[in-house]
């Protein structure tokens, strides 16, 4: 091994504390990269393989009722590669141990053989026997959540008739990776079930003999899906077609895709932050090292080493740190990805999900770490190259404080000498001080925005469940019903208030943009469920327009005053054009609100409600639930407390959980920057500080000269941290927001206060370590070294 390599390893050993700190920052950046890209590729590959193997349809076309003969016509359409009709229906399932019936979706599968599309992945038991109409296969997650197994029986109300069903098998399906009850966005395994029955049993249960109410399609290679959908719609329209939609609008697929793109965004956005911090740290630490080794550099050059050889020595040292960090990051990334994939397996109902490393991400991780190292090292290299051997071997001239602003103004005259030293350092090296200020401010911004995000999650929860929705339960009806139904609800003992709501599913269009969702009709002065503006003030519903959630307005690129086209997908399927009246603040979902009377009028219907919000006396909650269960009209009941809990656990799973990891990392990085800044300042001034001690300054007085500088830098960094934090919060909040929930990035003074405390705490801890070293400093040897 060449002597330079010996020197390299010994130097690394000597500066191991700082080297490890920098390597860890790099490791965290690479870990996020490896983990996120690994998750993205695991999720997409598994999803694609699952879709392909279990033949997920590409186009779904729900229809009121169409004769089976129509399937031949649909199959003959150009661009259609295959078609299959099936029967779907809603059911209410009574589960032992639950006071309320649970919503379920019933689907037909062919009497013999597997379905052409949307096949089942049997996890237990077998498929139903077509000769036994009571046999069903149940969605396994629902069964597990409710303690059901093959062999058990359940009671279900289908099409108004109560049946006893025998579970013969449990299954997963590619179209139900992510499930939630209709009208709800938040998944809750226990509260939404899927039932598969043989085709003949389904057609008997839902009176669909010789007919189907959903067609599934495969699109031919090369065909344009949108055109195919238009042709399908044209054929199905006369039969009550509800609009064919592709995978991008398929509920389950949409959420999986959104999760993947969220991860992709994090994978490209987060690691660069870490790597730039690492580059900055490498720059200050290695810069200091080159400064202190100027004599050795001069000596090597005097011996005849070339610039590149000497520079290469320091570059190698930087690369050892960077690659060490990258290797560690890859290992962390694999471990963290393996752990997170467990969470995802539970969250999405994949039959198999293996954390698959993306080999390229190792390469990218190493390349990015190298880039950060070279970036940080380039400036250091310049200094090495610039040193002439003769100059390098003489002690450096004292830093010149006579140039530029040397703090000799009025302020400096008011200060004692130690304070003046602090002031002059700040004014003499504005660039370096600014670097430290920006570094610390970035740490603070990161911490502050993570605090803001934590708060945003709480705020989303509170706003959605306390401010927007102030009801205790939401009831949905089997079919739109009039005042009688509401009166009936109001008569139940323990129900304090009833507020009707009309939900219709619809496609909202504005120019090129469209959204498949629905419109919610509210009473004119809603109390239990309201639209609110950004200041949380109720938006009154008035006829002649629509109120859109901010998220939805952004999606449709529409502003108040512009006209929105609503293609209703229920009843007579009217197309309505209405102006946008206002933008509502909604942190959950992307609702569109209209005046209920206005909506009913547009639908050409009388005053009908599709459901109602209830306020319930907490003391009689159980009797109210029992009464609701016995009402034939009631299709589903959602208890807010349960929904809120589901929402909360949703936010703590998947991508939402990453906020805690990022919070911890933000803290580590903030501390790392502050600590390194203090350490480098200390190393640079070791001799000055020792001189002060020798002259008779106490350790406290000496520490002031150093820590005063750190304090000034920290104080300057705080306001900048607030400023940067505000920007960072907005972009991180966007990253965490999904179609399900939006995380607000409100300016919360408390979050910045906490972040400032973290920074100040880190500064105090760093100050403590540095002061301890000043106390222990060997005065004699510090004075002997020439710098």
């Amino acid at each position, binding site marked *: 091994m060449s002597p330079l390599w010996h020197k390299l390893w010994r130097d690394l050993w000597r500066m191991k504390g700082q080297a490890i700190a920098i390597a860890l920052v790099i490791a965290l950046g690479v870990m996020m990269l490896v983990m996120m890209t690994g998750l993205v590729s695991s999720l997409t590959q598994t999803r694609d393989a699952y879709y392909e193997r279990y033949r997920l349809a590409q186009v779904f076309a729900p229809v009121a009722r169409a004769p089976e003969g129509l399937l031949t016509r649909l199959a003959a359409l150009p661009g259609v590669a295959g078609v299959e009709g099936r029967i779907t229906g809603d059911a209410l399932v009574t589960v032992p141990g639950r006071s309320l019936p649970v919503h379920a979706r019933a689907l037909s599968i062919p009497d013999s053989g597997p379905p052409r599309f949307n096949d089942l992945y049997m996890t237990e038991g077998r498929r139903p026997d077509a000769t036994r109409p009571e046999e069903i296969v149940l969605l396994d997650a629902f069964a597990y959540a409710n303690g059901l197994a093959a062999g058990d029986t359940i009671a279900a109300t289908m099409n108004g008739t109560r049946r006893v069903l025998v579970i013969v098998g449990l299954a997963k399906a590619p179209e139900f990776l992510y499930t939630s009850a209709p009208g709800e966005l938040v998944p809750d395994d226990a509260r939404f079930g899927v039932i598969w029955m043989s085709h003949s049993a389904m057609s008997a249960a839902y009176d669909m003999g010789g007919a189907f109410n959903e067609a599934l399609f495969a699109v031919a290679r090369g065909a344009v899906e949108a055109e195919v959908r238009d042709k399908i719609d044209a054929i199905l329209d006369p039969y009550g077609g509800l609009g064919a939609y592709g995978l991008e609008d398929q509920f389950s697929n949409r959420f999986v895709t959104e999760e993947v793109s969220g991860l992709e965004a994090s994978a490209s956005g987060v690691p660069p932050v870490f790597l730039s911090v690492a580059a900055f740290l490498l720059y200050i630490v290695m810069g200091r090292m080159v400064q202190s080794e100027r004599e050795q550099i001069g000596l090597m050059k005097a011996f005849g080493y070339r610039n590149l050889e000497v520079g290469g020595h320091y570059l190698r040292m930087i690369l050892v740190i960077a690659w060490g960090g990258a290797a560690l990051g890859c290992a962390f990334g694999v471990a963290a990805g393996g752990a997170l994939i467990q969470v995802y397996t539970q969250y999405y109902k994949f039959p198999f999900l293996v954390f698959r490393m993306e080999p390229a991400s190792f390469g990218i991780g190493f390349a990015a770490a190298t880039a950060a190292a070279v970036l940080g090292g380039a400036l250091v290299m310049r200094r090495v190259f610039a040193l002439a051997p003769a100059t390098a071997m003489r002690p450096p001239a004292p830093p010149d*404080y006579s140039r530029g602003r040397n703090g000799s103004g009025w302020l400096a005259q008011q200060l004692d000498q130690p304070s003046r030293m602090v002031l002059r350092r700040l004014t003499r090296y504005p660039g370096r001080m600014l670097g430290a200020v920006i570094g610390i401010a970035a740490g603070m911004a990161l911490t502050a925005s993570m605090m803001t995000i934590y708060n945003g999650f709480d705020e989303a929860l509170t706003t959605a469940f306390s401010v927007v929705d102030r009801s205790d339960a939401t009831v949905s009806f089997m079919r739109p019903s009039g005042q009688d139904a509401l009166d009936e609800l109001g008569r139940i003992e323990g129900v304090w208030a009833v507020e009707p709501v009309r939900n219709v599913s619809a496609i909202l269009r504005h120019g090129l943009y469209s959204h498949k969702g629905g419109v919610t009709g509210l009473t004119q002065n809603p109390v239990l469920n309201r639209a609110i503006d950004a200041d949380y003030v109720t938006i009154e519903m008035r006829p002649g327009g629509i109120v859109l959630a901010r998220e939805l307005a952004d999606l449709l690129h529409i502003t108040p005053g512009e006209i929105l086209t609503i293609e209703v997908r229920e009843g007579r399927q009217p197309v309505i054009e209405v102006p946008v009246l206002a933008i509502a603040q909604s942190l959950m979902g992307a609702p569109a609100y209209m005046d209920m009377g206005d909506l009913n009028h547009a639908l050409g219907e009388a005053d009908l409600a599709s459901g109602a919000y209830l306020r319930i006396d907490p003391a009689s909650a159980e009797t109210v639930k029992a009464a609701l269960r016995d009402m034939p009209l009631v299709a589903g009941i959602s208890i807010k407390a349960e929904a809120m809990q589901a929402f909360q656990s949703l936010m703590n799973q998947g991508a939402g959980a990453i906020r805690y990891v990022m919070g911890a990392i933000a803290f580590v990085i903030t501390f790392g920057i502050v600590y390194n800044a203090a350490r480098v300042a200390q190393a640079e001034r070791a001799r000055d500080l020792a001189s002060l001690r020798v002259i008779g300054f106490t350790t406290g007085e000496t520490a002031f000269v150093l820590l005063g500088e750190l304090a000034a830098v920290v104080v300057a960094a705080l306001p900048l941290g607030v400023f940067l934090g505000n920007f960072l919060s907005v972009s991180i909040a966007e990253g965490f927001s999904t179609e399900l929930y939006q995380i607000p990035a409100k300016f919360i003074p408390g979050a910045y206060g906490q972040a400032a405390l973290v920074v100040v705490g880190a500064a105090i801890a760093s100050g403590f370590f540095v002061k301890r070293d000043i106390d222990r400093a060997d005065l004699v040897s510090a004075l002997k070294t020439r710098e």
Partner: protein
Amino acid sequence: MTDTAFATQQLTKTYGEGHSAVHALRGVDLEIPKGEIVVLLGPSGSGKSTLLNILGGLDTATSGTAYFQDQALSSMSERQLTEYRRNHVGFVFQFYNLMPSLTARENVELVTEIARDPMEPEAALDLVGLSERVGHFPSQLSGGEQQRVAIARAVAKQPTVLFCDEPTGALDSTTGRAVLKVLRDVNDRLGTTVLIVTHAAATAAMADRVLHFADGAIRETVRNKKRVDPAEINW
């Protein structure tokens, strides 16, 4: 009050342990009266700087006792040593150790601000002949000028003793002589005891007393009958 500035008994200093132990001082006994200029001569590693550091309160002895007047330095705490340096000791170093961010005057003020009974900073700079350059930063001063500022800084507190470790080591002979002259003037005018550690044997001529060091012990103590003017010293 005693007339002795420093006294030591069987003072030893050992660095390291066992086979690798280095005996920097091997039982030094000495007595230095107040108001003298004492030169400590000897080759590198002979123990002179170690003795200076112990007497200056920068280092502690392994065994034996060292007294400043009638106070035992060897039993002082870190805090008491700081007080001792602050109130009684002035230091001058080979590499000056000025604060680069402070002007000449401010470097002196650094000390006068914390001393009990300091001189006016201007008076101290006047003493070393630098009244004209009080507003200059170290980077604007020559090596000799920097060393004179360092001396002004050391004497401004009116110390009882002045320790100089190779004060002319980084200077050419003309500048070196000027610096030595300043040290002599301080001794003359303020009665400060001055201890000078040096390699330059010629410096011995300006001293009242010369301690010759070798292998961690004083080999010889020479008392000069007549002190030579630094201007006449050649090395």
